[in-house]
């Protein structure tokens, strides 16, 4: 799980062009969206969907679950862990 969290953080930095950040700067529990945490937006949400599909073969079938799954790096990692093939 720890390895997956580290890998996810690096993928977020690379795919979302968070060029001034390192994996250590991203709080695993902090919200990804909104003003409190990383401050990502709807375009970033699309990029994260692509990370899940391309890199882990996971497709989110129910969009209503998105808010919960995308809350933080931790929730994302847990979802990947329980759904990856």
């Amino acid at each position, binding site marked *: 799980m720890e390895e997956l969290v580290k890998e996810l953080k690096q993928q977020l930095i690379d795919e979302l062009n968070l060029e*001034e950040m390192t994996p250590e700067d991203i709080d695993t529990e902090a919200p990804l969206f909104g003003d409190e945490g990383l401050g990502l937006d709807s*375009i970033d949400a699309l*990029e994260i969907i692509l990370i899940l599909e391309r890199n882990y073969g996971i497709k989110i079938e129910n969009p209503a679950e998105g808010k919960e799954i995308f809350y933080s790096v931790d929730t994302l990692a847990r979802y990947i862990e329980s759904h990856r093939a």
Partner: protein
Amino acid sequence: MSATCYIKRHAAISPGGDAEGKNYLTAAEPDYKSLIDNPGLRRRMSRIIKMGVAAAQMCLKDDIRPEAIVTATGLGCVGDTEKFASQILSLGENLLNPSTFIQSTFNTIGAQIALLHKIEAYNMTYVHRSLSFESALLDSLLLVEEGRHNILVGAIDEMYETPYTIEQRMGLLRNITAGEGAHFFLLDSEPHDACATLLALETGSAPATADCFVETLLQAKGLQAADIDLWLTGENGNTLHDKPFATLDRLVAPTSRRLSYKKICGEYPTAPAAALSMAADEIAGGKARYALIYNHSQEYHSVMLCGSL
């Protein structure tokens, strides 16, 4: 164009004229963090977008809010387009990144400037090959004529290895040094704080003779060729392309200072914007009263006339 149009400010991110062993000239870029302080917006900007937005930011200092944003580009965001096209191929047209698509569109620079300043005014982008900047400028002049103030008009084009290789293979760069640049101008109908006047702009497709084209324009403004003291020529080193400039050299007075501006900025579709920037600088510095700019690319010709206040 009947209303007088004043250039209040202008800003440039352009090459310094030294190719340093390269095949093309690249712009000297500033520290973008100081000009685009929103990291959220900056992280989505590619090099050309940063160049364009930063040049616009230099023009919009002191909280000036433009009543229109007009941008021009010949080839648009080529780097982003290459990235997006490569993804289409490598990912089999599936699961493409939205950011690369957004960045690859021609009007993204005008849009980013508007987003940064929360400007909901007129926003237009012209992509008309080597007449892109002149088309944007003509639109801006019409907006000035309508009575709008602080019209932000700019031109942006980038050059790097891939487009250079393609243009070279297509035979478009024979004896020509390619270039790039981002130039923005703030135009107004009021002379307050202005540095130069844009007196005339004409474009044409293969005019019969370049000298008649220029003479007609000068006559319309009550000027003679002898009045021109700065002569900015758009010759690029290709003998066939440069023919009209020999004709024009015979018309423009030998006493005028002649500057081949593409030796400084290189050849690219919106290079006349670099010439306008140079003319505004020379006029503002008192080194010229009237500057004539002539560009020619493929069958397209354009002439701009600038003057002191």
